[in-house]
Each structure stands twice: as structure tokens, then as C-alpha cells.
């Protein structure tokens, strides 16, 4: 009888843990989805098409006129490009724990409207991945 009780208690505890984990995962998944929906609704049609196809999109800095590529991610995801591809990475992010879509949208808006503010705080890094070059 005691053995049965113990099994029942353990099963209930397992069920509780699984339910809590599932709630955490679905909450995170829905935050992520909300961030992506917001990002997509603020992209130009060209940026949206590029993002849907390649999980990155390009923006033009409002001050320098240079091209940047914003990859899906929350850090180390912005690269300055030239016709040969990425030259250098620029890492700047909004404070707080924001989802990827929000971080990327912040980066797009800042580069397009206040590039110098982004460059003033950005940390440089060497791009480790290889990306397709911009058309000459």
C-alpha cells in the first residue's frame, strides 16, 4: 500500500514538473513569435523577402551610407559589408532580455535613423561565418 502511495506521489510530482516546463517553453516560444511578428511588420518588402529566404536582411546606415547585414540573433549578429562580403562585426544591443526579433528591429531602426549612436557603443568583432557578398 505504501509502495503504491509513493508511486502515486512521484507520478504527480513528475506531472507537475512537466507541466511547469511546458508552460515555460510555450511562454518563451510565444515571446519569440511575438518578436518576429513585430520585426516582420516593420521591415520593407525587400528586407522581409530577404529575411524569409535567408534569415538575415540588409540595411543602409543613414549617416555613412554603408551596408550592414543583420542576422537572426541577439548578439554578434550585425556585420558591416562591402562588395567582398563582411568586413567586421558590430555588436550593439538594447539593454534587457529581449527576444531576437526585438533586438534585430532595434538594430535596424538605429542604423537607419541614428547610425552614429549605434557606432558609438558598438563593439567590433571578427565575423566568423562566411556570408554571400553584396552584388557589385
Amino acid at each position, binding site marked *: 500500500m505504501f509502495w503504491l502511495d509513493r508511486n502515486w506521489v512521484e507520478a504527480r510530482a513528475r506531472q507537475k514538473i512537466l507541466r511547469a516546463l511546458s508552460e515555460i517553453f510555450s511562454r518563451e516560444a*510565444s*515571446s*519569440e*513569435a*511575438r*518578436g518576429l*511578428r*513585430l520585426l516582420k511588420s*516593420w*521591415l*520593407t*518588402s*525587400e*528586407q*522581409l523577402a530577404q529575411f524569409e529566404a535567408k534569415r538575415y536582411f540588409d540595411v543602409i546606415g543613414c549617416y555613412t551610407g554603408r551596408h550592414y547585414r543583420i542576422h537572426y540573433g541577439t*548578439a*554578434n549578429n550585425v556585420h558591416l559589408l562591402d562588395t567582398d562580403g563582411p568586413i567586421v562585426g558590430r*555588436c*550593439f*544591443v*538594447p*539593454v*534587457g*532580455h*529581449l*527576444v531576437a*526579433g*526585438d533586438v534585430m*528591429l*532595434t538594430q*535596424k*531602426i*538605429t542604423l*537607419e*535613423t*541614428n547610425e552614429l*549612436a*549605434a557606432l558609438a*557603443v*558598438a*563593439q567590433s568583432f571578427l565575423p566568423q561565418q562566411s556570408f554571400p557578398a553584396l552584388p557589385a
Partner: protein
Amino acid sequence: MATQIVMDGTGDTRHYFDANEQKALAKAEERFKQLIGDGFTAAKRTGAGQVSRIGSFDATAEETLFFPRLVGG
């Protein structure tokens, strides 16, 4: 219906208000000032995918987006 969209850990929080209603407009303006005071940057959509930053409350903006200040990563 106008919207103020504030980025946060849940993706975003949205505040809807009727821009023709004086009380709602005043509340939205107060929220704008509070967020800017907290270090947020405000931007409004000016066309499909086109955005401009705004430093003061724009009662005509359909959507105003607020994002936190930037730091180097």
C-alpha cells in the same frame, strides 16, 4: 485606434488608445514622456518599412514603437 508598442521580455506590450479622445491622448502622452525618461527611444512608421525617430509625442502617429537604450555587446 493608435498603438504604443513597448518592447519587453514578453516580445512587446501594446497600449491602444483613441487619438480623438482627449483623456486617452493625454494618458498616451504621459506614457510617452515616462518611457523616454526611462531611457527608451521612440520611433514611428513613416511608410512601408520606413521609420523615423521621434523626440516628442506625436498625436498623429498610428504606431509608436519604444525600444530600450543601446549598449555595446
